[in-house]
């Protein structure tokens, strides 16, 4: 059933596109009509759901770099007949662009170091705590359910039988105002943290995996089912990589 006041205007109203005078009239109507207000609320909620669901795909780092380089290395065509300009203009453009690309790469690298440093801090702080984990268990079927009701997402943990890894337990963690799961695994004498966050809350789109040279921690990161995984520990590259593979393949 249509409402004669809201008719034709409700979408523009929730989109914030109604002129102020009309928006004011409609807002007044919504204050007295519970049914129309509920309809407007449904529309706002659907808008939000689409906004969240629509932010789905991220370009790979390699592709980003390829395009950045392709637009950075194309010289502008010389418009004058001067010989020196024919040579100088492209050279200048290449110079400017290489400075730009360099700055971009440095910024990217600094950002990456910062993220991993923060995660390394979280890893070390957890190990230094009196109780490194909030739920102590080597059973994935105990640790995973412990996060129910604490996090707005869930994840799979791997079966470790027949591997060198042991699950020590899990704890809640917070990274850049985002709640996430921290799982601690052991391989031989080394402890490794696995962090899991909802990626939409983090600005981590361009992160690449790799060792943290400054702090000697080895790291790995990837996206899976809209979740961002980080593996951080002082174990060797091979150990970090093998644990990451187990997590990626977990059912």
């Amino acid at each position: 059933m249509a409402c004669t006041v809201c008719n034709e205007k409700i979408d523009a109203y929730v989109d914030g596109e109604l002129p102020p005078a009309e928006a004011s009239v409609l807002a007044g109507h919504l204050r007295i009509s519970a049914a129309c207000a509920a309809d407007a609320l449904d529309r706002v909620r659907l808008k939000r759901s689409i906004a969240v669901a629509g932010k789905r795909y991220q370009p790979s780092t390699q592709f980003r770099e390829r395009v950045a380089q392709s637009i950075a290395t194309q010289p502008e065509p010389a418009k004058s007949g001067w010989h020196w300009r024919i040579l100088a203009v492209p050279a200048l453009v290449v110079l400017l662009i290489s400075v730009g690309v360099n700055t971009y790469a440095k910024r990217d690298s600094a950002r990456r170091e910062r993220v991993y440093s923060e995660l390394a801090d979280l890893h070390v702080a957890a190990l230094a705590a009196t109780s490194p984990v909030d739920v102590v268990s080597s059973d994935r079927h105990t640790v995973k359910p412990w996060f129910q009701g604490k996090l707005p997402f869930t994840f799979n943990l791997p079966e470790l039988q027949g591997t060198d890894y042991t699950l020590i337990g899990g704890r809640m963690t917070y990274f850049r105002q985002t709640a996430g799961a921290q799982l601690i695994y052991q391989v031989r004498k080394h402890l490794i943290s696995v962090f899991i966050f909802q990626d939409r809350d983090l600005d981590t789109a361009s992160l690449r995996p790799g060792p943290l040279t400054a702090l000697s921690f080895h790291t790995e990161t990837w996206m899976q089912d809209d979740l961002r995984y980080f593996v951080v520990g002082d174990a060797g590259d091979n150990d970090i990589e093998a644990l990451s593979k187990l997590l990626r393949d977990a059912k």
Partner: protein
Amino acid sequence: MAGFIPRKIFAGRGNKTRGTTVYSREVPDQRLPAVAFEEQALPLFDQLFNFARWLTHDTAEAEDLVQETYAKALRGFGSFQPGTNFRAWMYRILRNSFLSSRTGMNTLISLDNEEHEAAAADLSTPESVMIADAGREMIRQALADLPVPFREILLLCEVEEMSYQEIAETMNIPVGTVMSRLFRARKALRELLRSRLPAVDR
């Protein structure tokens, strides 16, 4: 009653004009240098890729489309009017490149009588509440299944938070058509979601 509608939704819209000026600031030199292009174009990279991927349903095609967009935009940057909307200009190039591709041409459908439809307010029902709360995966699937003209306008409005005017510039259609097409797109999405929701007591 209306007080519960979050104000930031409306405030966000109001900021759009300011938001777009970031991408459309004037560059003093008439021969706009490649560096200025890079400064304005690279921040749009992730969102252009997301949009391209939604249009093409294929990562490799989306990458080709984004690369083509940047190449065309760089070549045509000299003709870009400083002070106009750079973001809409980039999206327009991407969209036109898509529509002229083989995949894009196969997605064209006829949208008749667009000027004559307008949004009518329906009363909220348990079903409409469930639609509004549909899970992310369900919404993604429904978005993916919509015809391209509906999918793209919903993405531009809800995900990119473009104003009607900006969408009109991007899609090269009048603002009135933006409104009616948005209405039809939302209706189509709701119907798709409704058909996929578990039955509710009415």
